[in-house]
């Protein structure tokens, strides 16, 4: 069935280049093309506009700064510190959020008790809690991590809760009819059925935590971290390091999103066909 459709599609392509190679070349071109164009424009502005180096450094300066960071080892220690904080709080926050969300989606009493507080907390941006956590924990790791965990847990809670609540009733009935009840009904039917929504929660939680984390590292100056590096580069007027740092922040965020979360999604939700990838 599916294979016959592909056969027809392949037969229609009479080009000499194999379709797999063609697709790969096209993909590469679409990804790299805009990047190269941006870099060229950047370099032209840096060289021709006459803007001072401290505002608009050339690509050579930026990549030079990046190379220095690599050689001195600060790049490694910064990325490691930032990712360590991120992973720790995303994991703790996700576990807490999944449990609370699951309880809210499964039991009316939990839902009724928590819906008010959750709605209030949703109206308070996580970053607004910084003064409070600084009073509680001082300028410490705990001040950063507590806010990240809070933000992730809240996001994951809401997504898990709505996900579990909106599971198709016919699936629940089928699960019950075929002998699943109580915790088993939850594990074998509600949880997998709600997984698309729960994974969306993890993705959202991670990207929110990522944003907050960079700010947090600027406010609560720890000893290492990408936000910390950006902040101190500005203090020292090292504009090239600021740009290099931003580049690293962007690339790290991209890798997190595309590699880790897309892979998770591909192996679960997409294979079941509950979420569709655009052609």
């Amino acid at each position, binding site marked *: 069935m599916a294979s016959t459709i592909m056969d027809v599609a392949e037969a229609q392509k009479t080009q000499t280049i194999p379709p797999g190679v063609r697709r790969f070349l096209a993909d590469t071109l679409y990804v790299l093309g805009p990047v190269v164009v941006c870099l060229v424009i950047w370099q032209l502005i840096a060289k021709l506009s006459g803007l001072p180096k401290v505002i608009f450094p050339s690509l050579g300066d930026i990549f030079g700064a990046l190379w220095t960071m690599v050689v001195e080892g600060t790049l490694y220690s910064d990325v490691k510190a930032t990712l360590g904080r991120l992973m720790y709080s995303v994991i703790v926050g996700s576990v807490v959020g999944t449990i609370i969300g699951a309880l809210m989606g499964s039991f009316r009493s939990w839902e009724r008790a928590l819906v008010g507080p959750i709605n209030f907390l949703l109206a308070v941006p996580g970053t607004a809690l910084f003064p409070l956590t600084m009073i509680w924990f001082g300028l410490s790791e705990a001040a950063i991590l507590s806010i990240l965990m809070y933000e992730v847990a809240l996001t994951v809670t809401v997504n898990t809760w709505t996900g579990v609540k909106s599971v198709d009733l016919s699936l629940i009935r089928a699960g019950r*009819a*075929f*002998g*699943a*009840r109580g915790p088993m009904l939850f594990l074998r039917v509600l949880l997998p059925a709600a997984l698309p929504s729960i994974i969306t929660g993890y993705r959202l939680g991670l990207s929110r935590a990522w944003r907050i984390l960079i700010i947090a590292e600027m406010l609560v100056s720890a000893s290492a971290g990408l936000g910390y590096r950006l902040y101190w580069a500005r203090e020292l007027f090292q504009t090239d390091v600021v740009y290099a740092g931003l580049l690293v922040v962007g690339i790290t965020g991209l890798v997190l999103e595309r590699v880790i979360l897309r892979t998770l999604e591909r192996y679960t939700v997409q294979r079941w*066909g509950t979420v569709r990838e655009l052609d």
Partner: protein
Amino acid sequence: MGELRVDRISKNYVVNRGFNSSTGLQVFRDISFVLEEGEFVSLIGQSGCGKTTVLNIIAGLDRPNSGAIYVDGKRVTEPGLDRGVVFQEFALFPWLTVAANIGFGLKSAGVPKPERMRRVAHYVELVGLSRFIDYYPNRLSGGMRQRVGLGRAFAIEPAVLLMDEPLGALDSQTRETMQIALAEIWMRTRKTVLFVTHDIREAVYLSDRVLVLSGRPSEVVLDLAIELPRPRDRHSPEFQELELTLERKIGQNRMQ
């Protein structure tokens, strides 16, 4: 094993009519019937007559306001693996393969894995999906999905199979193919089946007996034995006569 006894079940709904005012709506009253072991019985009637509710009550997914259900003499009030349900909307688990969907009830029953796999393979073969055992439901056509639904219900080897318009969501051609497939599967297993449908032809083609549910509140207005040899010919005069009898009975009650 496989006798189903429905004993004087009634169902009412409370309809809210705005503030502090509600009226009761009686869907059906004192419905009783018995399915003997190995019998294929259809329950037909117009939409809204409560036939699906009767099936849900027997499945334990809904509760009657009065009356009781007995499977092999034992009263049942909750869902259980002594009854296998086939749903109109298939209700397959999209995160499980064909094999795991069919094995779902066996897993609930705690059947150990080697035995489970053996039985799953048998029932996958019975419903004609051997080539698709590792597929996820989203890659199957409507007819194949309902074959999975049938396999899931047959695999637990229940005393009674309950089918709620199982072919109702299929196009007319697939539907006819599936009627033939279902008749064959039933001939091979000889299970007790309660089959809810609104399609008279389908009921006559498949059943040993047809119960007509009609009126408001509904009751069983006709209990018609279909004694045609199988496999049945839809175009034979006897077949068409039975169709006409049922059509008249349903139509007659519509007038009242």
